């Protein structure tokens, strides 16, 4: 202790001082990068302060998807899955369509029609030629994407489309699909919008 005090070069009674050199930029950059990564982590794991979300789940949506469903909710949940694997590629998961690829389904007068006959025909036969959706004309081809689906599944997809994205329309039943299939018969051919307008709603 005593010899240690002696070896001190400055008088030990002097109070310490501090230099004024600035903090280098890389420290601030590192802080900002870490803050950014931290928020990304929180976005993925934090459940956005929802008190129902516990680890290892990450969001309220994820929890909802694991809940068992019944009745109309079950059909819609099933329809959503089928929609995302069959229709969503072109029409978009948000139903807004894609420019030069597929018209929107959200708010479309074809979807929001009172009857479901025209709507049911589209996936069963496909479309060729022009079709007007929300006063915009689309000149596209659509294959009969729904022809291979079982009646119940196609009904679930159409129900999902009609009830989502603010469309707010009612259910399409498996019987509706069955009736449409029967009307089309064994030899389906794609129709244009004008041809379809001749069909009753």
């Amino acid at each position, binding site marked *: *202790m*005593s*010899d*240690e*005090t002696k*070896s*001190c*070069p*400055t008088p*030990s*009674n*002097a*109070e*310490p*001082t*501090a*230099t*004024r*050199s*600035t*903090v280098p930029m890389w*420290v601030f950059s*590192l*802080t900002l990068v*870490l*803050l950014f*990564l*931290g*928020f990304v*982590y*929180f976005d993925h*794991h*934090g*459940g*956005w*302060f*929802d*008190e*129902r*979300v*516990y*680890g290892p*789940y*990450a969001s309220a949506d994820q929890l909802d998807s694991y809940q068992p469903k019944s009745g109309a909710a079950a059909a819609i949940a099933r329809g959503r899955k089928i929609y995302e694997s069959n229709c969503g590629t072109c029409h978009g998961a948000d139903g807004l369509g894609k420019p030069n690829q597929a018209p929107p389904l959200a708010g479309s007068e074809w979807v929001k029609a009172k009857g479901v006959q025209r709507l049911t025909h589209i996936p069963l036969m496909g479309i060729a030629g022009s079709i007007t959706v929300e006063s915009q004309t689309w000149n596209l081809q659509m294959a009969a994407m729904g022809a291979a689906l079982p009646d119940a599944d196609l009904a679930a997809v159409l129900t999902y489309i009609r009830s989502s994205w603010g469309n707010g329309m009612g259910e399409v039943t498996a019987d509706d699909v069955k009736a449409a299939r029967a009307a089309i018969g064994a030899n389906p051919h794609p129709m244009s919008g004008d041809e379809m307008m001749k069909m009753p709603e």
Partner: protein
Amino acid sequence: MNDLSQQKIDASCRVPLLALFGGAALWLVVGLLLAVIASLTFHKPDMFADCPVLSYGHAQPAANDAILYGFCIPAALGVMLWIFARLSQTELVLPLVPIVAANIWHLGVFIGIVAILIGDSTGFAWLEFPRGSSVLLFAAFLLVAISAVATFGQRKERELYPSHWFLLAALLWFPWIYATANLLIVSGHPVRGVTQAVIGWWFANNLIFVWLSLVGLGTAFYFLPKLAGRPLQSSYFALFAFWTLILFGTWCGIPQGAPVPAWLPALSTVASSLLIVPLIAIAVIVVKTVCGADVHCKGGPFCYIKFGSAAFLLSGLMLIASACPHFSRIVQFTWFGPAQEQLQILGFFAIIICGAVYELLPRIMDFELPFPKFVRFQHWCFMLGIVLLAGSLAIGGIEQGLKNYDLATTLPFLRASTTGLLFLLLGSLLFAANIFVMTLKWKLALIKSVIAAVTAPLEVSEVKP
């Protein structure tokens, strides 16, 4: 500033600091003794089967609280008072208040430790003391803070030194967290359910990590440049470290696997990983300040503070690691957490405070330490003890996590930790010996001077003809 006024400043701190340090040294010995007793259970589980007072569930929390509340906080308060008086270049204001406070504090700790040992603990980690003794501790802390802040207000040098920020923040931080946690979970109307656990974790982290870091770093930033004989590098870096430490540090502490809504542990993990920023800043400050200093510490206070700073960085890295999702899956609920706590409390904080006490004690007493060689011995004991204790618990914790909580693999590490505690106990005895012999010498000198004054022959001039 001339030496005479420095002596006056130091002398004004003498009695309050002795009151704080004397009790603190005693509690350090008692705490480590209790820790050794608790640790003996690892060697012979039924050793205290017929003696509930010393059983593991009583001795372990009593040991932790005796070390933290008995030693760390009062000793740190003493060091803080001296640093405030020195940096302000004024004598200690209201010196009687900390003397009273020291006695209230140590009384509170005594009641608390006895209550824990007889089984009257509240059951919350770091809040085991019963209500009465918490009130005493809170009041005593406020009293010391009043004296410290009054001294700060009288300062002659208006510009603040980095240690000021850390220590003033600590003076505000403890009453805030201690009152909040006690009112919310120990009071008559505690919050219910999982909120209790969340507040418990929040308090433990704010006390063990934030508060100890603020005081330990404030002390280190005062003594490192003083002992190295060169200025702190730099003031702005310290400011950056200060703000990032309190900004990020206060959010940590919720374990990954906690049964609480996911946003709590997620936020805690984010905050913990951001702690790397203050750790880097502190490492830069310490390295730049210490390296290039032409001072050999020779086991003296400089060594203590350097070792403590290194231990702080390591304990910070352990805290970040245990919040990391992949690593925490292995080490959660293992001995890794206690290893980090012990490293923070004993390896970082206690050793810095001991170094500071050894540096300032000869100055306030105005005579050399009675056993200067003990300083070096204690340094070696503490270093060895901390490496053995924290090292074996940390490795044992990782093994425990990897081997699926298998007792047989963990037990040898727990037994090894007893050796570490024994070295620490030996070191604390050397510390207590220095403090008590010094106090005794001072008291004897005081008595001698009183006797001398009473028995002195009258001056000729005073004798009436």
